[in-house]
């Protein structure tokens, strides 16, 4: 019962071209910058837009495969939760949840009983009679979850379900979500901007950038070996692309970096910001990478300080506030950088 | 030119230079009066005659509301009488034309209507409004013939032409209109004459408004309408002479 989405689709300025497989019983997170096409991907799977080429299949059942097949949205048996809850404003919470069973043929009483049971299970019985406008953001999003789950969908599509919640509420709803997702048998697709969601909820991750999937796989593998600047920035690490010859990596700009491991050909290298040491004068000692550069920006985040370094190898170093004070660093200052070769993680590009 | 730049000389300052005469008349007179107006203009250079046409009662209402009318030509005695009673007419109205009623049917008279009596069970009959002149006259004629029409088989046009149109375009089987209208419709309808003893003669009267701007020119126009040239035009439009 896995979801297979391998299709192309043009919509306005967006050219979406993806090949995605989401295993059953697992959560696949879709990450990507604004306008990457994440919502459009979900809409294509839901049948709100038709694909131009390729196919979408759920559990072997083809949902969309032009020119011949197009299963209408109401027959796809999916559950959708959107950032803006989208509870029907004219129905009570209970009737919103009962909407699915009712639409799938249950009688009014039966649908309401199913909905009531679902709300009970989620501890939301007290909200049954409330109209959506009377619900807080967190409550509304929980009802929306209940509405999507009560029909026991074959697949679950979540589009930034936590994005509009304030941080406190977000933690709570995320916890509910985690518990509920564990019980879902089919595949779940979770669109999010927040790495915390990925870590807390997802098993796999796919990164969508400019309509294409630039990286996907198990979370650990993606976080360990980011392949695009977007992913690296999300993880707060530095990503460098270059050509390796043994332990020496030469970037396109001509800068060189020594790694501990041997590689040949195109490679990525990541360096944790905290692994980068800064000095006023040329440092002595063991680190095999050292060069002189300038400070482009200094971002103070409480007791930690992120220092954006300039050419030849732009990267971010993270040091403590006292350290920066001791160095008397200011934007524009010259600075020496040192990095141990063992801190330069390399893998093939 | 529009109203704004049209020089209007009102008052009684004598000369006929650049005088504008406003004649308010019943719509059924439109064709004839426009032609008569041309003729009048030709005899009186510098005089501009403008017409406004509506049903007699509507025109009368406007006069009552103070519309700057110099001459009123009515198809309806009542409208004229009311204005006289209200003191809005100068002098006595003069009858300048007459008209008779006629039955009109579809071309070829498919329903074989030969008399007023045939109207009672022919289908829907088009008449004018009970209180419009042609409607009143038709009622008199029908009364005279002892014909009672079921009101649910009568459609009443908002004016004579609408009554005629109900026969020409609509589904009325017959109607009672003026002879002049039947004539104007040419072969779009067949006319069935009403015997003179049953027919009603409508009279058209003309008069000066009490506060006519240029009374002399207005009088001249009224005289012209009653004159031979104008009478010939009216006759050509199917009107009967005043006497």
């Amino acid at each position, binding site marked *: 019962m896995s979801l297979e989405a391998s299709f192309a689709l043009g919509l306005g300025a967006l050219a979406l071209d993806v090949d995605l497989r989401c295993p059953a019983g697992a959560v696949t997170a879709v990450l990507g910058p604004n306008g990457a096409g994440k919502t459009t991907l979900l809409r294509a799977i839901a049948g709100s837009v038709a694909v131009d080429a390729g196919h979408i299949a759920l559990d072997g059942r083809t949902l969309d495969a032009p020119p011949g097949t197009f299963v209408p949205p109401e027959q796809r048996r999916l559950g*959708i939760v959107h950032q*803006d809850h989208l509870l029907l404003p004219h129905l009570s919470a209970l009737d919103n949840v009962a909407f699915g069973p009712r639409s*799938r043929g249950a009688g009014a009483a039966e649908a309401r009983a199913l909905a009531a049971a679902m709300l009970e299970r989620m501890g939301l019985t007290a909200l049954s009679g409330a109209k959506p406008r009377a619900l807080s953001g967190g409550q509304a999003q929980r009802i929306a979850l209940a509405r*999507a789950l009560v029909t026991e969908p074959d697949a679950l*599509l979540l589009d930034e379900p936590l994005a509009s919640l304030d941080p406190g509420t977000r933690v709570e709803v995320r916890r509910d979500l985690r518990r509920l997702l564990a019980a879902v048998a089919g595949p779940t697709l979770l669109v999010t901007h927040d790495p915390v969601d990925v870590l807390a909820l997802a098993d796999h991750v796919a990164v969508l950038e400019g309509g294409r999937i630039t990286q996907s796989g198990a979370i650990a593998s993606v976080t360990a070996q980011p392949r695009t600047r977007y992913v690296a920035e999300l993880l707060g690490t530095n990503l460098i692309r270059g050509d390796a010859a043994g332990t020496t990596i030469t970037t396109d700009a001509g800068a060189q970096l020594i790694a501990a491991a041997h590689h040949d050909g195109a490679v990525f290298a990541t360096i944790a910001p905290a692994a980068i040491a800064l000095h006023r004068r040329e440092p002595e000692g063991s680190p095999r990478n050292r060069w002189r550069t300038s400070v482009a920006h200094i971002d103070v985040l409480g007791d930690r300080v992120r220092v954006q370094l300039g050419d030849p190898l732009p990267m971010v170093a993270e040091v403590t506030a006292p350290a920066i004070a001791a160095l008397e660093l200011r934007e524009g200052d010259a600075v020496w950088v040192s990095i141990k070769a063992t801190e330069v993680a390399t893998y093939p590009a | 030119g529009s109203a704004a730049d049209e020089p209007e000389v009102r008052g009684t300052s004598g000369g006929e230079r650049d005088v504008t005469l406003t004649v308010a008349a019943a719509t059924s007179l439109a064709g004839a009066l426009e032609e008569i107006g041309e003729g009048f203009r030709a005899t009186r250079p510098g005089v501009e005659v403008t017409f406004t046409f509506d*049903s007699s009662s509507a025109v009368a209402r406007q006069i009552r509301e103070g519309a700057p009318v110099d001459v009123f030509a009515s198809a309806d005695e009542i409208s004229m009488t009311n204005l006289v009673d209200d003191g809005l007419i100068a002098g006595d109205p003069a009858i300048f034309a007459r008209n008779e009623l006629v039955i009109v049917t579809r071309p070829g008279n498919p329903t074989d209507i030969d008399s007023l009596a045939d109207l009672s069970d022919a289908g829907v009959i088009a008449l004018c*409004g009970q209180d419009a002149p042609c409607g009143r006259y038709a009622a008199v004629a029908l009364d005279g013939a002892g014909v009672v029409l079921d009101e649910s088989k009568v459609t009443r046009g908002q004016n004579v032409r609408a009554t005629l*149109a109900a026969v020409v*375009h609509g589904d009325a089987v017959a109607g009672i209109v003026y002879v002049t209208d039947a004539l104007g419709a040419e072969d779009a309808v067949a006319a069935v004459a009403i015997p003179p003893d049953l027919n009603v003669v409508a009279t058209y009267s003309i008069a000066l408004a009490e506060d006519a701007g240029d009374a002399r020119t207005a009088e001249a126009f009224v005289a012209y309408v009653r004159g031979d040239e104008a009478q010939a035009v009216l006759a050509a439009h199917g009107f009967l002479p005043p006497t």
Partner: protein
Amino acid sequence: MSRSGRRPPIPVVVVAALTVLFFSLPLVGILQRADWSTVWSDLTTDQAVDAIRLSMICSVSAAALSVVFGTPLAWVLARTAVPGRPLIRGLVLLPMVLPPVIGGVALLAAFSLRSPIGSWLHDAFGIQLTFSTAGAVVAATFVAMPFYVLTVEGALRGVDQRYEEVAASLGADRLTVFRRVTLPLIAPSVAAGAVLAWARALGEFGATITFAGNVEGRTRTLPLAVYLELESDEQAAIALSLVLLVVSLVVLVSLRDRWLVRR
């Protein structure tokens, strides 16, 4: 409500007030003209009662037909890529701007007994529109439905379609989506459109008298009765107009603010 902080600018208010005055004065004028001592007797004659009854039948039917036929049309205009949409919309809005008498002539051309459709309706079903209340309803619908279509098409375009997408994902087919999601979302506009159409039908004169005729008890609605009365008894005409005026005003006043805005 909070203290508004500042007044609306004087010149704007003055112009707006003048405009309201422009619309009020004729109304006041007609109220002044009314002879209140006879209003009641003028309104309770058989003919007046008949006309009021007919007007209610025709206007309510026209509004109902507008909803029944106008809603699918508005949906197609708003939601499908139907070819020639601007032309279709122009065609449908035309009766709104055409002199009604011309509309009536056009209706005669299409549906009189002498037209192919009119004769077919008559021969096949015994339906005759001219001189019948059905015809008055058709004429009223012809001039009134554009108001409904315009209002509801706008509302449909304003609906957040994601509600409909979510409902479909929950298993609702399109009819269910329309019935249980779209319609409730645009309910205020449906009501507003129906009210506008109803009010327009109530005031309809030219197309009705031209197409359906002016037959007492069948097609002589209030405006037709008013017109006839204008020939003789202006007081009776004004009394009947007052009915129209008051009823329309009450309904228009009840058009709540939110009905004018798509949410």
